[in-house]
């Protein structure tokens, strides 16, 4: 199983390669794109991108020296026709540099790249929200070689899709950055914090009513309030536990390490570490964490010894006892409980 991790600067390639990454992914916002389209909308992230072709060339070159590959993200929610044409040009440049794959978030772009793009692998982004075999087969028809599953999917759903279309490769989230809503169905903008930030974390106040028009009973109000309290707790875990880390520097937050045996059994060939905009130290520790888990799994398999080992990596069972940190909670890795 390959580890896929993000970089945002040339200097991050070598440390992550040494930490044990197999594949790197990055984004770029070329200056001519900004000049032409007046935005940084080349991909999903406004920040955490390379800014020049020379940087991209260096990233690919250094990765190759370590025997690693680089994928380029083209994973905005949607593109105009003019933007798609520009992205095809970018794809050719990247392929000429020795880039390995494009991570594509728009079906129109995917089909165009397959038809008139360079000879380069196409990976269907998690933003495409593939959760059934029919969808994965369509992605294959359109030219994808790999499907990156969205975050909110169960292990059995992934296994079913992977079994139905074994010709495709599959990648699943393993660490960091949990979207609250499905990323592929999120049509909001991560506004600057003074304007509210991401909509999922904005300070909305809820007032409930009943659709049948009846007033809320006191017991209902209390139940809704308790549910909202639990939701706030869940949000904290989902949002990387306030970007806290273990004493060893391993990041807390969304995690699927306990599910590696099931992912492997399902035929998932790669696991994705999110957090392109994060600090280098966080990226290194993330790769080290996943590498340790994978190495142990290759020796111990899916035994209880594996689970104990993985939980111990971040300080023992108590550190991940709140199940709200798990990407794949059906593993039963943690028990939900209130923070603190």
């Amino acid at each position, binding site marked *: 199983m390959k580890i896929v991790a993000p970089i945002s600067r040339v200097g991050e390639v070598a440390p992550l390669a040494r930490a044990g990454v197999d594949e790197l992914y990055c984004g770029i916002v070329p200056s001519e794109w900004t000049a032409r389209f007046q935005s940084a*909308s080349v991909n999903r992230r406004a920040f955490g991108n390379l800014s020049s072709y020379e940087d991209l060339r260096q990233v690919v070159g250094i990765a190759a020296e370590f025997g690693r590959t680089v994928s380029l993200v083209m994973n905005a*929610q*949607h*593109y*105009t*026709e003019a933007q*798609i044409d520009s992205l095809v040009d970018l794809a050719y440049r990247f392929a000429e540099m020795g880039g390995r794959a494009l991570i594509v978030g*728009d*079906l*129109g*772009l995917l089909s*165009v790249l397959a038809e008139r793009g360079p000879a380069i692998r196409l990976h269907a982004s998690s933003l*495409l*929200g593939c*959760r*059934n*075999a*029919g*969808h994965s087969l*369509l*992605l294959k028809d359109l030219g994808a070689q790999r499907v990156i599953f969205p975050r*909110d999917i*169960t292990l059995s*759903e992934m296994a*079913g*899709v992977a079994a*139905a279309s074994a010709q495709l490769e599959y990648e699943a989230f393993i660490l960091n950055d949990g979207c609250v*809503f*499905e990323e592929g*169905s*999120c*049509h*909001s*903008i991560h*506004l600057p914090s*003074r*304007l*509210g930030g991401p*909509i*999922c974390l*904005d*300070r*909305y*106040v*809820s*007032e409930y*009513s*009943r*659709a049948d*028009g*009846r007033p809320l009973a006191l017991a209902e109000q209390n139940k*809704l309030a308790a*549910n909202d309290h639990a*939701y706030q707790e*869940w949000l904290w875990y989902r949002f990387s536990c306030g970007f806290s880390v273990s004493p060893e520097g391993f990041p807390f937050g969304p995690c699927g390490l306990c599910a590696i045996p099931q992912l492997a059994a399902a035929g998932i060939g790669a696991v994705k570490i999110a957090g392109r905009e994060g600090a280098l130290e966080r990226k290194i520790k993330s790769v080290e964490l996943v590498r340790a888990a994978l190495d142990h799994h290759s020796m111990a398999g899916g035994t209880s010894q594996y689970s104990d080992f993985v939980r111990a990596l971040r300080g023992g069972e108590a550190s991940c006892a709140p*199940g*709200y940190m798990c990407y794949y*909670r059906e593993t039963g890795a943690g*028990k*939900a409980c209130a923070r603190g």
Partner: protein
Amino acid sequence: MAELALSLVEARFLEALLTAGPPTVARCGEVLNWSHRPFPSEWAERSIDRVHFGSEFCETLLPGEWQVRQAVAAAMSCGIGLSLVTAPASDAGLERLSALLQLLPAGSEVIANDWGVLRLLADFRPAVIPVAGRVLCKMVKDPRLPSAEWAKLYPHGIHSRPFVALLRRLGVGRIEMDVPPFAQPADFHGLGPAISVHSPFGFSVRGRSCRAGSLNLPLEQKFMVGPACHRECLVYIDHMSRRQGGSESDLPTFQRGHTIFYRHSPEMNAALATAVAQGRVDRLVLSGDWNEDCRSHQSSR
């Protein structure tokens, strides 16, 4: 003149609305207790032409077989069209949907909000008419945008040739759109498929971890993908307001289940009215029972 469709998630309203012929918009508002004015208001006495039945957002709300039979019978007896609405789906959901498709008369529409559903329809059900739902037609729809400049940063590609070609490949001749904040009539200008537009609410984000659906679950199962909910989204509406940091341009916002919606501003309604008058939009989908519904229900007590 644009066709008028009424969207219904709950089967119980089929009987209430469709037993005495096609209801008028005003009658729909009365039965469904709309607090919002139907759009456009001068169409209050127009009859609806079609019913959209099912959920766009959650496969848990996929109707059962008897409900689909009921919808087919009700639409046929009224002489109006029927569109079965479907949500993003797992393979289990697709299997349930496949069984429902057998119940639809030829010529019925299926509104797909999942590419796998569109592929299923293209491969196995050529007798139904596939429609690309608004979940597939992506555009920036953040109800908090402070100005039109923000919306311009991320223009949508719904009318781009690659997207239209993809739809054509899947046999799709109609798409559904929302009215985005700061909409212009040009947002609906396409040379490809026919365009339906939802009114008066758009959706901004949808998820799979459901806050409402977790209400009656134990802590260890809350907000988890998988556990069966009790369809609390049909009972509770969360009216959301930004008391800190909100701006005057915020659109009225509410959440049902795991989906956040916004209500159109008068300016957005005007842009849609212009697009309808120009013939760019040929169907309006009125939000039936899935709305903010903040008026008390004297009639249903």
